């Protein structure tokens, strides 16, 4: 499998590797994929009071393009509002990294991961709201 220099760079020097406390109200966690399928991505975003993503972390079990897709994603989401982040498309990731056709699913997984992280945040916010109104 020959990868683009961008994939190799993200693989060799992955950005924003790590974990936040997933219980924190300001942290949204998205865990997608399955070990049996060969890839699992965990993406975490930290949102400030203005609803802007100020930091992101990831851990990925998967092939080089899965690692690169999630590493790139953590760079892209920083500074974006949740709405802006939810507009990131897998095709953008695939294009940026020049993923070969058999690896497109890695970019799909990355898109799923950011959506799942945003959902997690919203679920937490709704929960907090209900608690406050009760």
């Amino acid at each position, binding site marked *: *499998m020959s990868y683009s220099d961008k994939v190799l760079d993200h*693989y060799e020097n*992955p950005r924003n*590797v790590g*974990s936040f406390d997933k219980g924190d109200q300001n942290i949204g966690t998205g*865990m*997608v*994929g*399955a*070990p*049996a*399928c*060969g*890839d*699992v*991505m*965990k993406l975490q975003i930290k949102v400030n009071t203005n609803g802007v993503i100020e930091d992101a972390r990831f*851990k*990925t*079990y*998967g*092939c*080089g393009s*899965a*690692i690169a897709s999630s590493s790139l994603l953590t760079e892209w989401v920083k500074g974006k509002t949740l709405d802006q982040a939810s507009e990131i498309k897998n095709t953008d990731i695939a294009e940026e990294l020049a993923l070969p056709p*058999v690896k497109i*699913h890695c970019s*799909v*997984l990355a898109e*799923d991961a950011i959506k799942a992280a945003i959902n997690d945040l919203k679920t937490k916010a709704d929960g907090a709201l209900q608690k406050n109104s009760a």
Partner: protein
Amino acid sequence: MTDVKLPIYLDYSATTPVDARVARVMAECLTRDGNYGNPASRSHSFGWDAERKVEEARQHVAALINSDPKEIIWTSGATESDNLAIKGAAHFYQKNGKHIITSKTEHKAVLDTCRQLEREGFAVTYLEPHSSGLIDPEYLKAAIREDTILITIMHVNNEIGVIQDIRAIGEIARKHKIILHVDAAQSPGKAPVDLQEMKIDLMSLSAHKVYGPKGIGALYVRRKPRVRVEAQMHGGGHERGMRSGTLATHQIVGMGEAFRIAKQEMASDNERIRTLRNRLLNGLKDIEEIYINGDLEQRVPGNLNVSFNFIEGESLIMALKDIAVSSGSACTSASLEPSYVLRALGRDDELAHSSIRFTIGRFTTVEEIDYTIELIKNAVIKLRNLSPLWEMHQDGVDLKAVEWAAH
């Protein structure tokens, strides 16, 4: 460490470099000043000389497996030998029955040939091995039916290197008057075969796994008691009508020389290779959560197949780009399935995905093994630091209990 030439080749079960001694004798059979005649030419010395070379090579091949040279049929490689043996015997003996026994861990050349015979109306039983990779001969015996005509079981497994008990299987096959075919592509120079003692009827051989050239192999066809196969390749009636086609003198001579050297150097090669394999094993064994695939005792010396839990196979291969190894991972092969051999052993998909096959050979050095150990240790640390599964495992999460979203 810096004097090691990169990348390091640790994929000797995929193929081997041609030994310089082999290349030399091959080169003597190509050009105008060499032995370029057609071995089938009966009317001049060019043909006679080439034929003599071919027959010498046949003797070398026969000698390694303790058979009669007349029992050796040249083919293009073990895949063709498997096809000729299995289809050839099945077609010849189908009047006696249409049932074949094989195992789930055979090479694709055997499994796909069996699938083809199923399409033609044969019934095939695929035996499941123990988690060690070994087939229990008693289990095989129980699978025999009234209409079983052929058993095809490999000698040495290409992925995990385990050696099947062909001696015991041969006794069973002979007692039940069933033809036994053995795919021994991985055996020469690694696991001894004695056809005077082992009751094998048909056996596939390959040259390029034992420092010979690619594109040449042989099928052993027993003469006493006589075993018949229907030809799959028709033409000039070469190789006693079993495999037509002009004999490739240079290839055949190369295989002969490779087998001659294998017989001479097998014991010393194996001892050295086993020491290197054990050095690799010892170097890796302190890494947490690794699993050795296949029985360690009933195994060729040069094979080590390891699964690294919580790391995906292709990313591991990427981290190990300075060493040439094989992976059981889905991503590196054309199909999306992880290694069917490891799955047949009962390994779950994750461990099958994260397996690496190291195969050590004649030209592997201690320095290369030491370099490999360091490389792997560092790669495992790096990739586990990246792995959400490793993190969950460290936190005490039971990954089997997690409900994963399929995709």
